[in-house]
């Protein structure tokens, strides 16, 4: 690969290409496998398939745990994004444009939830919720509210990171020019600053939604009967078996994530955001 020349491939170049192929095979194999399996006709996952079928999708829909999981995950992800992204955006704006001390520390503080392992944060919240339930005498664990609160911990740091990045790359001069031309501070914000943050906010919304939707570690201990997110429902199912019905559910999640990425990429170049 280095100094690829007109001559034939050297051993080193061959090894390098093989490693690249292996790396991407490992990355894609499980995803491709799940999508394929969901269309296989037979019940037991095996090769070669005896035929192709869509019946597992119908079967998945008939299983209440998956349907409810899908609805719960969707609700939670939507609400966590709706709460976390505005809060994170406000904080990012203050961190980049504000003139007070300790902004760097604040930014690290708001990014901290990303650094805490999901299982650890989830355990802490679990104990916190249980003790708070005793104090307040109402349900928190296994409620949508409890899950949404936990998932804002995913939305806020992602939003802060992405919006801060989008703001830092921008020139302050445009805002100053607008003010110089007679725009009030609110107008400057609405006409100049907000459009400049747009790509960051769109990306933040996508990441927040997806991170919440596919989250397992943080949510595991916070779900309960009737309030189970899709990844937890899948995990519970998978502890007993892997079958095309589950593959169908997983494929729905894959398609949803893919769709969101494609839509987001139309607004902001994802390859430049990450």
């Amino acid at each position, binding site marked *: 690969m280095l*100094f690829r020349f007109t001559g034939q491939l050297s051993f080193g170049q061959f090894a390098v290409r093989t490693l690249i192929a292996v790396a991407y095979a490992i990355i894609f194999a499980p995803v491709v*496998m799940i999508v394929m399996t969901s269309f296989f006709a037979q019940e037991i996952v095996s090769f070669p398939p005896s035929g192709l079928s869509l019946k597992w999708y119908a079967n998945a829909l008939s299983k209440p745990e998956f349907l409810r999981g899908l609805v719960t995950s969707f609700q939670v992800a939507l609400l966590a994004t709706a709460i976390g992204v505005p809060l994170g955006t406000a904080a990012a704006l203050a961190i980049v444009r504000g003139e007070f001390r300790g902004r760097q520390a604040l930014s690290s503080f708001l990014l901290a939830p990303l650094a805490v392992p999901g299982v650890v944060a989830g355990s802490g919240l679990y104990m916190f919720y249980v003790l708070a339930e005793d104090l307040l005498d109402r349900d928190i664990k296994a409620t949508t509210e409890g899950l949404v609160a936990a998932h804002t911990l995913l939305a806020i740091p992602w939003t802060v990171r992405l919006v801060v990045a989008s703001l830092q790359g921008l020139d302050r001069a445009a805002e100053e020019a607008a003010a110089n031309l007679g725009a009030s501070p609110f107008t400057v914000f609405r006409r100049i600053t907000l459009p400049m943050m747009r790509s960051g906010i769109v990306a933040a919304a996508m990441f927040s939604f997806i991170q919440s939707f596919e989250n397992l570690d943080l949510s595991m201990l916070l779900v309960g009967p009737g309030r189970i997110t899709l990844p937890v429902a899948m995990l519970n199912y998978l502890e007993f078996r892997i079958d095309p019905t589950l593959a169908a559910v997983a494929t729905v999640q894959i398609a949803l994530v893919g769709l969101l990425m494609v839509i987001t990429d139309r607004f902001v170049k994802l390859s430049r955001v*990450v």
Partner: protein
Amino acid sequence: MALLVVPACLLVLALLIGPMILMFRISLNQFSPTQLMVQALSPDNYIKAATDPYYQQIILATLGIALLCTLLTLILAFPAAYWLGRMESRWKSLVVIATLFPLLVGNVVRSAGWMALFARDGLVNTSLLKLGVISAPLEIMYTTKAVIIGIIAVVLPYMILTLSAVIESIPRDLEYAAANLGASGARVFWRVILPLSGPGVAAGSILVFVLCMNTYATAVLLGGPRFKMMAPAVYDQFVRGNNWPMGAALAFMLLAVTMAFTVFGSVAFARKYRTG
């Protein structure tokens, strides 16, 4: 202006910092099978985690697997990262998104994919049988091997994206200069590219090591019920054992290791290459 950060900070304070302090406090309590939790102020749970062979083995296995996976991931990711970092065509953004995509699909889904591949009559076994490499199906599921492959698949994109960002910033002319001075491809790699990728290698390795340490779904699904790593062990303490103090202590240890590495990483190297 400063007021705008208050709501977000309060949320993080209430939902992360508060519970972490609570957790630390609980980790100093004691467990009794009848009363569940007894108020105390003792480091017993930590001592037990460090000395009891059961926990010792979990901790050592977790560290070992994390270390091995980090090393393998580094070796596997470097060529791909170089390829991506040096790519100039319009395909580049597509490859970046394709690398990112499996990452966002989630670990449960990907573990399920491996389960389908590794099953007794899954693709791996049937292909190998057909090719005549093996004569009886391999038992891949519920082995350490399966977990390691599953973990590598999870962390590879992080490593590739982190490394490729650093490699991209190494001027191409340095490679040409080295070749001009007589260095073959391999020597250009060892003498120029690798040393200059140092910060990326360190940042990527730390990130990946931490992610490996915290593996949950992959360990549970591919390792089976008897396979133990730290994160599943923490979960078990709460769900199966109802032992909050021990669970809290294990969780806190996991947090401490993670934080130590992360803080060290972010102090030593620029953080901007972190992708998730």
